[in-house]
């Protein structure tokens, strides 16, 4: 029983913590913290069962669970994972406890509600990656907005209300159009011979590619808009700096670490296989936007005076690589995109944690307020260096693997059909080195501030708790950098199958979505 429902358990286990938290009085700070972190930690351990139980040699969705939910509309509770969702789910359950631990003392008011929101958020995130029914996917996708809205709006910075509303409206705008596209797609499924209205993804994989290009185009645009806002793709990124900067540290970690991945996940899981012909049509457009995003994000990051904003803009740049890799539609490109999602989650998540740690001490994030920090906080500076290098893409660390694969994949892609994409994107790597190292230099190196005060506060080096949070991240940063095969092997079948089906779709083959098992 338990083993067959392990995926649902992973999704909904945080709700157990929510119920426990509801029973605790709001002034009992310590139990609230322990329940919150403990629940998310347990969720991580449960998700490890998924990781170790996952068989990369089986080329289909695993840990499947299907139950009729709303009979009249042919909607079922249908979840299952492949290599890509596996990595993203584990990334989610990995980052959530770390984000909570890393901000142990940062949240001082309404702690109970905060923990409840974080746990509900986790349910939504894992659910999005596991859902194989579009209705279910949509419910998780939207439901997640509510806790994030509160997290930004209640515990955020100065401009938090503006940022929260902007985040909510931007995301909702895109996703509601996707809802119409989901309905239309289900409707077309019912017009197929012997078909019925359905939102079952595996069934729709057979329907979408058979639609005429004109229909595919509209639905692709509706889906892609929703995902592009989430990624965010240039020029739809304007909500991101506001939301990331205003959100409390844990919120930023989750936003950057997981929420953005939902956009790129959606592109790979839905846009390409459901609407291959439209995807080919829009590949040049989206790839150009991705490349613009890479360069634009990097250039804007370079001139930021606020560290957190710099990291936020670097996300625009990094996610551009993921989108480029996706639309390269080569095995290297897709593999690179997936691993780059994980990389970005780790390194940007860690960067936000690091920024949060220094902000808790000094109550400032302005680069000009710092300098010489490495002498005062050597341990902090060391971790910062590791993560900076990972973010830049130094060989031997994780960022390199993802960016290299993406560039390789897009260089030889016959769908992009031009190496200029890769060449321009590569400049982003150089810019990344510029803005990250320049920031590091201004913050960490140089003379110590007079009196050793930063923002008027005396600073101490990292506590043991903070080190304990950062060590696991650094561990994976090195692991992926040195031996990425551990993770690439999980996603190889996904990439291979997607590329195969895209290529056969381009040749107009009948079996367009090859080997997708029937439910």
């Amino acid at each position, binding site marked *: 029983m338990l083993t067959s429902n392990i995926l649902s358990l992973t999704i909904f286990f945080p709700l157990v913590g929510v119920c426990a938290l509801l029973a605790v009085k709001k002034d009992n700070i310590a139990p609230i913290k322990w329940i919150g972190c403990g629940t998310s930690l347990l969720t991580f351990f449960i998700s490890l069962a998924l990781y170790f139980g996952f068989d990369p040699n089986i080329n289909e969705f695993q840990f499947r669970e299907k139950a009729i*939910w*709303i*009979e*009249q*509309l042919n909607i079922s509770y249908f979840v299952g994972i492949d290599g890509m969702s596996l990595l993203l789910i584990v990334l989610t359950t990995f980052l959530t406890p770390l984000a909570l631990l890393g901000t142990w003392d940062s949240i001082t008011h309404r702690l109970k509600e905060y923990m409840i929101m974080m746990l509900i958020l986790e349910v939504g995130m894992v659910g999005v990656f596991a859902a194989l029914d579009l*209705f279910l996917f*949509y*419910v998780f996708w*939207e*439901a997640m*907005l*509510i806790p994030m*809205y*509160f997290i930004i*709006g*209640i515990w955020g910075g100065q401009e*938090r*209300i503006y940022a*929260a*509303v902007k985040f*909510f*409206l931007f995301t*909702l*705008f895109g996703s*509601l*159009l996707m*809802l*119409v596209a989901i*309905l*239309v797609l*289900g*409707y077309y499924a019912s017009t197929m011979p012997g078909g019925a*209205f359905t939102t079952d993804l595996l069934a729709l994989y057979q329907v979408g590619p058979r639609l005429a290009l004109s229909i595919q185009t509209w639905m692709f645009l509706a889906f892609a808009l929703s995902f592009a806002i989430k990624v965010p793709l240039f020029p739809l990124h304007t909500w991101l700096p506001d939301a990331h900067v205003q959100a409390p540290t844990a919120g930023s970690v989750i936003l950057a670490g997981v929420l953005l991945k939902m956009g790129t996940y959606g592109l790979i899981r839905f846009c390409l296989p459901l609407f291959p012909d439209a995807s080919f049509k829009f590949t040049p457009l989206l790839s150009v936007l991705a490349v613009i995003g890479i360069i634009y994000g990097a250039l804007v990051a370079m001139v930021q005076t606020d560290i957190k904003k710099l990291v936020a803009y670097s996300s625009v740049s990094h996610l551009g690589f993921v989108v480029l890799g996706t639309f390269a539609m080569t095995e290297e490109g897709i593999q690179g995109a997936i691993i780059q999602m994980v990389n970005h989650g780790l390194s940007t998540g860690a960067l936000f944690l690091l920024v949060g740690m220094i902000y808790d001490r000094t109550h400032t994030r302005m680069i000009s307020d710092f300098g010489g920090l490495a002498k005062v906080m050597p341990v902090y500076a060391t971790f910062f260096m590791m993560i900076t290098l990972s973010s830049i893409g130094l060989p031997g660390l994780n960022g390199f693997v993802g960016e290299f694969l993406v560039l390789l994949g897009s260089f030889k892609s016959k769908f992009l059909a031009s190496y200029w994409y890769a060449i321009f994107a590569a400049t982003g790597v150089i810019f990344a080195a510029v803005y990250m190292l320049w920031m590091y230099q201004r913050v960490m190196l140089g003379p110590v501030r007079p009196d050793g005060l930063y923002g008027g506060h005396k600073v101490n080096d990292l506590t043991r708790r903070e080190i304990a949070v950062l060590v696991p991240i650094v561990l994976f940063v090195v692991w992926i950098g040195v031996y990425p095969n551990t993770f690439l092997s999980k996603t190889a079948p996904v990439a291979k199958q997607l590329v195969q089906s895209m290529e056969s779709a381009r040749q107009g083959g009948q079996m367009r979505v090859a080997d997708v098992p029937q439910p």
Partner: protein
Amino acid sequence: METLVADIWRSTPLVLLTLVGLIALLVEGSGKGRAAAVYWISLVGTIASFVLSFLSLNTEEAAFNDMILQGGYAAFFGMIFTASAFGTLILSRSYLRRLHTERGEFYVLIVFAAIGMMLMASAIDLIILFLGIEVMSICLYVLVGFLRTKLTANESALKYFLLGAFTTGFLLYGIALIYGTVGSTSFRAISAAFPAVSNQPLFLLGAAMLVIAFSFKVAAVPFHMWAPDVYEGAPTPITAFMSTGTKAAAFAAFVGVFLGAFQIAGSKLSEVIALAAAASMIIGNVVAISQSNLKRMLAYSSIAHAGYMLSGISAANREGETGILFYLATYTLMNLGAFGVLSWVEQKDDTKLTFDDYAGFSAQQPFLAALLSIFLFSLAGIPPFAGFFGKYYVFLAAVKADLTWLAIIGVLTSVVSVYYYLRLVMMMYFQPGGATVEEPPAQMAFIAVTCAAILVVLFGIYPSLIVDLTKEFLNI
């Protein structure tokens, strides 16, 4: 005689509530200070009628010479009306006591309005339909102006009465024209004759008159002008009643005539209704943004919701009808709940009804703020709350009927609506301030609103609970 007894026996939910109403009226007239007794009698009556409606859900049959339908469709709506009346009664009690204007007639009028609504949903003859609308409307005219010392109440009652009376003219004229072409007012006869007469100018004119009359009652654009003023001036529980029970009743009649008696799929009538739906969604949601008074804001939001439900009628398919029924049932819960919380915060002199009056509400009243947020998120159509599934259903119906443009307008205006619903959530949670309630809400009212919130979540996660009820008896 035998059939009469059998017919009465079949119509127990309606007959029982009528008896209860009459008894309550007698009790009220028997002496002073009987308001509490009247209240309890009315309350028990609505509960009993609700239970009887529920029990008769699966047996749909015509009674009284094909004038009234019992069970099924009528019973489903009967449940909505009695639930709405029940909630209104509970909210009214504490509201009136706070204003020191508790009168037994108030409760009796609510019961009689509910009887009128049930007649509307049971009608399978245009004359009965007319009768139901009048019974309901006359009670409401009085209820709206019940606080007669208040200028706004007088204004809204008069406005509602004048426009309502005018609409009655349209309704009757429409019925007359349809009778003129078909030769009968029975739904069955109209339905049989529909293919033959559906293109006759006189019939179309009559149907158009009905569209106007019903659009007025559901507050759809362009016949919505009365709603904001009337909603604002009426006592808040009555505003809740009008935006839930009355709206549901008007939709019951609308659906009964246009999807039961007529077959409008793909016709000009469907197009006209689609246009009204689109206009309601756009105007309702856009104008709601600029409102600072919450009752007016919810009035415009109810115009917009009428638009969403009209898309279901315009689609004229099974999904559309199921969608409307689901939508109305859940909309009743969330609107009653939202107005309930509003009525607790509101002050005697009509103040504390703006967005700014809710600053910091969540810090003072965390539970009430959470309840109101659930209702608002549900109204905005965010999953996993029930409001989302209602919208999903009617949009699905629109897409199936090749009205995808209507679904697109629907979702785009939903984004607009999120702005003003969330503005209230934002005030409660993000803004500092000391908003609170003057006195804690009465226990029963509190429990009722909490139950409504629980049901909004439950029906959102498991909509089949309602959808299953409807599958036996749909018109289409």
